[in-house]
Structure formats: structure tokens, C-alpha cells
């Protein structure tokens, strides 16, 4: 039985949908900017579900008015890390919220091998479970390489 037949990483918004086009990404960014969010671009090649903090590409972009500025940064990040996971993160600085309001993946490696569920038998019939990315064996920067 396959629980994730597409083999795609599903984290954040829109992750069960086909990849967003650039125009659709720009629309989402525009929506966030209208709500006063500060966008930032983050990337990683270790998309373990518990790896909450991805690497920041540049600093968060406050005081922007138009999506073109954010797209500029995203394009630069894609050029630098074509085979990494890249996500857009919108920070809502409203007092009392001060948290991430939106987050979605905008770039994926071509091949996503997924995660292994490891079972460990311990005392009695108890089980311990852990999740490990198949790609995580390779050192950082060499994961998700083609071929």
C-alpha cells in the first residue's frame, strides 16, 4: 500500500496541488503583501518534517509594495539552488500574531525519494518509530543530485 503515491513532499500550503506557476506564486505574494506580510525565501536539502527552520535566502523583505521584488529574490534563489526545496514564507508582524501566516513550497528537486519509516523493537512488544529521508545519507549540498 502506498500512502503517498505521488512521492512528493507535502508541507505547507498547496502542497497536494500541482506546482504553482510563477504567475500563481506572484498572485499569492500579492495577496500576502496586501495583508501586510513580510515575505522571505527559504531553502533546504533536508526537508525532514521536524526540520522547522530552513536556511534563509537573504533577509526577510519588509516594506515591499509589489510582488515583482519578491519574485526577483525567488529567481535568484532558484538559480543558486536549483535542486533544493525552496519555500516562500510570509511573516505577519501584527502585534499579537507575530508569526508565520503563509508558507508554501515553490521549488522541488527533480527526484523526491521520500522518507523511510524505521521501526525499532524495544523491551517487550513495544515499538519505536523514526522517520529518515532516503536522501539524507549524502552530505549537505549533495542530496537530491541528479543521477
Amino acid at each position, binding site marked *: 500500500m502506498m500512502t503517498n503515491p505521488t512521492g512528493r513532499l507535502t508541507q505547507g500550503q*498547496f502542497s497536494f*496541488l*500541482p506546482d*504553482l*506557476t510563477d*504567475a*500563481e506564486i506572484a*498572485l*499569492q505574494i*500579492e*495577496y500576502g503583501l496586501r495583508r501586510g506580510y513580510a515575505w522571505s525565501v527559504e531553502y533546504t536539502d533536508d526537508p525532514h518534517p521536524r526540520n522547522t527552520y530552513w536556511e534563509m535566502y*537573504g533577509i526577510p*523583505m519588509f*516594506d*515591499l*509594495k*509589489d*510582488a*515583482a*521584488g*519578491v519574485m*526577483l*529574490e525567488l529567481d535568484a534563489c532558484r538559480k543558486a539552488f536549483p535542486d533544493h526545496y525552496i519555500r516562500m514564507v510570509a511573516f505577519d508582524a501584527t502585534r499579537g500574531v507575530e508569526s508565520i501566516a503563509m508558507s508554501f513550497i515553490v521549488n522541488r528537486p527533480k527526484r523526491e525519494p521520500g522518507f523511510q519509516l524505521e521501526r525499532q523493537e524495544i523491551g517487550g512488544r513495544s515499538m519505536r518509530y523514526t522517520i529518515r529521508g532516503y536522501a539524507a545519507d549524502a552530505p549537505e549540498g549533495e542530496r537530491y543530485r541528479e543521477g
Partner: protein
Amino acid sequence: MPTAPTYSIPGSTTAAPADAAPPRADTQPERTVAEVLARSNVQEVFEELERDLVGLAPVKQRIRDIAALLVIDKLRLNLGLEAQTPSLHMCFTGNPGTGKTTVALRMAQILHRLGYVRKGHLVAVTRDDLVGQYIGHTAPKTREVLKKAMGGVLFIDEAYYLYRPENERDYGQEAIEILLQVMENQRDDLVVILAGYKDRMDTFFRSNPGLSSRIAHHIDFPDYGHEELLEIGERMLSAMNYRFGPAAREAFAEYLERRRAQPHFANARSVRNALDRMRLRQASRLFTEPGRQLSRDDLTTIEPEDIRASRVFGGPGT
């Protein structure tokens, strides 16, 4: 095997997202100049321009020309006549206080109403905002400013400071290169306006021919005439709820005459500073009579002695 999507993404409209830009896509496309003007409210900005800005006839004419081109381009586009987006980068040259910043602000509004910039905000910067202090500092700094200006107008005041020929290791050159690249590649996203004194801008462009050739509109702001300055002064006063008392207008005219002959005269800016000093003197004059009940007239009137106490009349004043 691509199939038609059965999902819709929140935020995207029913129209194809790629051309989400055209507003009022439901209505008929415009066919006449009047229709474009009516829909874009650009006429209002023209009227404001005419009403609020004294003089500057050549500048206003040039703005009208640019707006006309944009309107016609829009009509052409409606009939399917593709034309490359006109290059709208501009250069404002003129002496200090001739209204370059004010006009840039209006320009942003006009371009926004005609739909050539999406947001219509103005980001005003100088060398300090673009150029960093150490190696590797300039590029991120310039890019950050550019990102903030996307969808609007980037106004670079005293742009010639970006290039310092006497120091070949100056980081200004790096800022200029990034600027050039964005001006060329993202014409739809950003309009850049450079401003500065005429002669220094000319030298600046001579040493940066790439920049000069990418700027389509060079607009020269003339100095104000005597009458125009007088009118500007009166408008500023009334905007601050003051007025000239009897003979004060003549005194002010005389003041301007003398002040213009002196060095460092900065047109409208000097007028505003002079008015501010007159308000100070008026306040001190009223201050010396603590027992007097002050009427509305007393509080709003600038008397000739407030003006004649100025240092330009040879007095010991400020």
C-alpha cells in the same frame, strides 16, 4: 499527460492567472482618447498639476507629451497593435527648489493611473541608501531599495554622487551597474527618475553613457521668475493659514529681489525658509505684548516689519 485542472487555487481568479493585470477586463476596451482619460482619472492629476504648481511650463508640457504617448499606446494595444513598452525612465535636472521631487510624486500618480506602474508609490533615495560602506555591502543594499520600489517609481536625488571619478575603488559604480541591469530587464516593474543639478548631471552622464542612453526623457526644470516666486510664497502662506498685511506683499517682493541676488538661492525652498523665519518674527512680535487680546487677524497677518527685519535688508536680524 496534462489534463484540465479540476481544482482552483485560492487567490487566483477565474481568468488565466498569467494576465491578471488588466483591470476592468469585463468592460469594453477604450476606443477614444477621452475614454482612456475618463477611466484613468489622469485628467484630475493634470488639473492638480496645473493648479498646484506655479510656472514650470516646459515641464508640464513634457509631462503632457509623455501622458499622451501612454494614452495612445493604450488605444493601440486595445486594437491589437503591439508596441514595446516605452522606456519611461527619466532624468530631472534643475537648480535646487525647482520642484523636482514634487513633480516626481505627481509623475508616479500619472503613471499609476495610466496603468504603467502597478502601485504608484514613490521611493526617494540618495547615494547613502544605495551604496554600501565595505566590499559586498553595496549589491544587497541596492537590491533591497530596488525591491521596495518595484511596482512604483524610484527617485534618486542628486544621482551624480553615485559616481565618484576621483576614487576608482568607489562602490558607486557597482550600484550603477545593478541599477542599469534592473532598468533594462524590468521595465514593466519599475520606473527610475534621476534628479540633480544640470551641469553635474551632464558630467555624470558623460562618464556613464550606458545610463544616459537608457533614459528616454531628460526634463530640465527652469528657475522660477520673480512673479512666480511671489505667487509661490503667497500660496505657501495661505496653505499655512497666514496672509500678507497691507504693504507686506511689496516688502516681500523687495525681499525676494534682494535674496535672489545673494548666493545659495534655492528657489521655492528659500521662499519657504524665508516664510518660516517671518512666522518666527511675527510670533516674537506678538509675544512682546502679553496683555493684548489677539484677534484672528493679528494671528494670521504677516506685517511688513516681520519681513524687513531680515538680514537681506542689511539689518542685524536673522
